[in-house]
């Protein structure tokens, strides 16, 4: 089904950047990787022309930078004899954040179609277009992805944290998130006193 959908997108929206991402799992739920610039147009095309009217699930996925090892065989001539030399080359794959949408069609009773969008990196360029104007159901879920992964959804009507509190700085679902030693810690006015005590103990010895 996904290849037919892809063909329809290519014929309906020529020039839109959409490619197929293969899923090796036995369920073969392949997905469509959509360029951020074309995402709104593709989403509207899917909703209006192909009747994928139900955006069921929106989830974030974090892919930190990783090293991929590749074994390469190259031929070299040493002392006039051609030899095959096996080498493993390591190259870096930059990290990115991903927003995954699972779409169903209530009208045609089919699905799912999996849409993916990727950010440029994980620090500065973490913006993706919001699909909430297309499917209202993405509203809270995009807020949750923003909260837990830190993807900024441009065009979202009310992009605030959903589950964590507003002053919270981190994004806990990221793979490199370090949980705090003390989950119950809260800064108190007494902290300054404790700091002074520690400093004095360091210079004058314990119990001073």
């Amino acid at each position, binding site marked *: 089904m996904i290849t037919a959908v892809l063909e329809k997108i290519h014929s309906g929206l020529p020039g839109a950047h959409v490619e197929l991402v293969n*899923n090796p799992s036995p*369920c073969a739920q392949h997905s469509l990787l959509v360029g951020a610039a074309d995402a709104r147009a593709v989403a509207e095309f899917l909703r209006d022309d192909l009747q994928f009217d*139900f955006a069921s699930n929106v989830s974030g996925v974090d892919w930190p930078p990783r090293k991929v090892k590749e074994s390469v065989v190259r031929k070299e001539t040493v002392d006039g004899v051609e030899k095959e030399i096996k080498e493993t080359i390591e190259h870096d794959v930059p990290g990115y954040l991903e927003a995954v949408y699972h779409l169903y069609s*209530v009208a045609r009773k089919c699905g799912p179609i999996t849409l993916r969008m990727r950010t440029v990196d994980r620090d500065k360029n973490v913006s993706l277009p919001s699909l909430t104007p297309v499917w209202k*159901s993405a509203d809270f879920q995009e807020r949750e992805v923003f909260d*837990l992964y830190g993807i900024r959804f441009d065009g979202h009507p009310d992009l605030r944290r*959903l*589950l964590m509190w507003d002053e919270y700085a981190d994004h806990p679902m990221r793979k490199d998130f370090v949980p705090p030693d003390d989950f119950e810690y809260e800064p108190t006015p007494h902290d300054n006193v404790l700091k002074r005590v520690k400093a004095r103990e360091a210079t004058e010895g314990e119990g001073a």
Partner: protein
Amino acid sequence: MSTLAINSTSSGDARTLDLSLGPQHPSTHGVFRMNVTLEGETVVKLKPVFGYLHRNHEKIAEGNSWLAAMPYTDRLDYICPITNNWAYAVAVEKLAGIEVAERAEYIRVIVGELTRLQNHAAFLGFVLGDMGAWGSALMYAFREREKILDLFESLTGARMMCNYMRFGGCRCDLPPGWIEGATKVVDKFPAFLDEMEALLTGNEILLARLQGVAPLSAARAINGGMSGPVLRASGVDYDIRKVDGYGIYNRFKFRIPRGEVGDCYDRFMLRVIESRESLQILKQAIAGLPGGPIINPKAKLRGFRPPVGEAYGRIESPKGELGFYVISDGTDKPYRFRIRPPSLINLTLLEELCLGTKIADVMIILGTVDIVLGEVDR
């Protein structure tokens, strides 16, 4: 029990009143809070505030083995633990391509539909409590729910935290006499529904509080991601048991009830009618229960490593579409474990439903959407 905290008017506008409703309010079904702006008694703005029960379920599951997430799913929608298990099992079975044992499929349908019955019974009690019929209706409902929980206890050892499903089957077989007990419950349940209906359906107060309150059109319900009874109450013919036919649901004959206008009354009555259809499924499943193993002998539980890939599996839970999106990187832990919570997503349109209604109706609207905070906040 006065938990309505009245804030000063933030806008300085003397005509409106900002009200922080919850989180410790008896009718918010847990720790749910709404910031409501009122003009007189009419709601002009409503912003839900989440996270009071947030423990980052998904992160915890990603730090444990695939199987270790199974008992933890019980804690999502703690009214219906078995359907939570089922949804997770369906997702992982899709991911790894595991076949489910025939007998286990029947047992899954039986316990799943019993879960639906007890959820809808509890729902009737809760909503009537929200309407001011405090106590009696809930006790009537819980009397019935208790009989089903007793069945769960004799089957799984736990009344609510059942931890019953496994990838490829179920954890344990039915104890002796269990089927007779289930048959008895199924036979007696219509009497409870009849009694509830006789007491309620024609009740003038109930009709006045429910009919015409917060109607939801089919188009808005679909766009807003509503699922389950709320979606069908708006007249949409969409039940995942029919559409996906997961498990063995395509072997049973049952109808999908639908509402007409999608108001609170439709959402309320739909649960009653849906319970009657669940009883039909139960009768067929109990009659057709085959023998054999309760788990696929090839399924591996300890040291389970599904192949690299991803899958989205979903079921029709009593609250709506409960889905799990799992990504495997080939190790013994899920790389990504995402829950599609029907309780949270069914609240997307809460503000839209409540605008222009009276503050007393907000509780009923919230009640007829049927949420559980363990699943909303995760």
